[in-house]
């Protein structure tokens, strides 16, 4: 059989989709044809290219995205409920009628008595309300920051980083997103801003580790110098081996190497 005829069967043979008879025909041809045999061999060898493992940050980003999406849908639901409120206009009209007036007068008296009884504990409950509002506001800000960090536009991601600076304590998901930005954002400006934002969270062990890891990954000299300066500012002695490794990199910018030398002398 000629190659042109085998070409129609070979793709099915490669995906093991041929019957016994046709398989024998193809295998017979492969024994005599170098080109087709090599193609079949290459198909098998493609398995040598191993699969890559996605980073663990992916799951955190997905959870954040799902949470933001679900919150957004809940808000839409609330807005719809407000619209539905218009249909309660007829109830309002009933309250204005004489029968309605008696009814809400009774409700007001009962409510007044209840408020009087609760007055003693009013202070503490209003403090609780304030705390709840504060928490809600914080959550909202962090959600905005998360969503902005995932935007296509670098300026929006920069704004997302600046939102994270408004909070003293960051949610773990926001912190993860910020660390991901530091390592993988396409824009140097955004990565630098992320480093600046992370510098306030040196207390978190994973932050220091991410900065040390980023030192080996970043190619931009500007970024490398900023990372080195940050590690010196934190006086992170554990970063010394990482700095030493960077210093030995063959194609390292001379200024960065000089800075790494300086940092190693400071940390030791």
């Amino acid at each position, binding site marked *: 059989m000629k190659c042109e005829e085998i070409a129609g069967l070979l*793709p099915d043979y*490669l995906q093991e989709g041929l019957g016994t008879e046709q398989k024998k025909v193809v295998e017979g041809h492969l024994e005599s044809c170098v080109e087709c045999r090599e*193609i079949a061999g290459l198909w098998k060898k493609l398995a040598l*290219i*191993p699969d890559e493992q*996605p980073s663990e940050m992916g799951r955190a980003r997905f959870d954040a995205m*799902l949470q933001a999406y679900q919150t957004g*849908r809940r808000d839409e639901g609330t807005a719809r409920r407000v619209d539905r409120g218009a249909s309660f206009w007829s109830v309002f009209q009933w309250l204005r009628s004489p029968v309605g007036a008696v009814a809400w007068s009774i409700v007001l008296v009962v409510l007044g008595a209840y408020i009087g009884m609760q007055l003693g504990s009013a202070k503490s409950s209003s403090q609780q309300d304030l705390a709840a509002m504060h928490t809600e506001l914080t959550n909202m800000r962090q959600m905005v920051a998360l969503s902005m960090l995932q935007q296509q536009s670098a300026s929006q991601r920069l704004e997302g980083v600046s939102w994270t600076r408004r909070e003293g304590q960051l949610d773990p998901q926001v912190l993860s997103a910020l660390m991901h930005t530091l390592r993988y954002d396409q824009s140097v400006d955004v990565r630098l801003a992320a480093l600046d934002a992370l510098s306030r969270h040196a207390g978190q062990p994973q932050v220091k580790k991410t900065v040390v890891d980023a030192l080996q990954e970043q190619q931009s000299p500007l970024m490398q110098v900023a990372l080195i300066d940050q590690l010196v500012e934190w006086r992170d002695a554990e970063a010394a081996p990482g700095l030493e490794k960077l210093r030995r990199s063959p194609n390292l910018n001379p200024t960065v190497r000089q800075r790494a030398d300086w940092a190693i002398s400071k940390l030791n």
Partner: protein
Amino acid sequence: MLQVRDGAGETLGVLFERYHAPLYNFYTKLTGDRALSEDLVQEVFLRILRHRQTFRDGTPFRAWIYQIARNARIDHFRKTRPQVPFEPEMAPTVTPGDPAQQRQESELLHKALMELPEEKRELLVLCRFQELPYEDVARLVGCGVATVKVRIHRAMQELRQIFHQLQAAPAGSTQRAAAQNLPPRRVT
């Protein structure tokens, strides 16, 4: 997926666990860019949430999710032209104990794959690495099953040629910018 479509957003987590690694590999093998691949995987799941109502009962889910993945990539490259055809760091991860020849072959194959024109590379990635049946791939790219098989055969012939050229050439001298290859046309 039917549960996700009917509003159970949390069920999407199960789909994420099952598909995020295959999708990530689909993108890394196509783009050669890890960070971009992570971003595109997130985009796929966001699109699943947004467009879940378009999923029809009885549709092969894998084909549907790869359609979304394909469109997400095409939309991305419509805004930004690919700039990183093959990062040296994207060379396959070598496990300790790999024989040197096998490692070298694996690297050459990876390079050869990245030098294939975009459309051919995509077909090989879908059929060989993602193991999608030719019928599903035909539906994805919007052509007949027979055409897919012909294209696969041609892609393998070209891969063989590039592989031979790389084997003959000194290391590092034959990189051809895959960035020049435009992404395939979007099929909706």
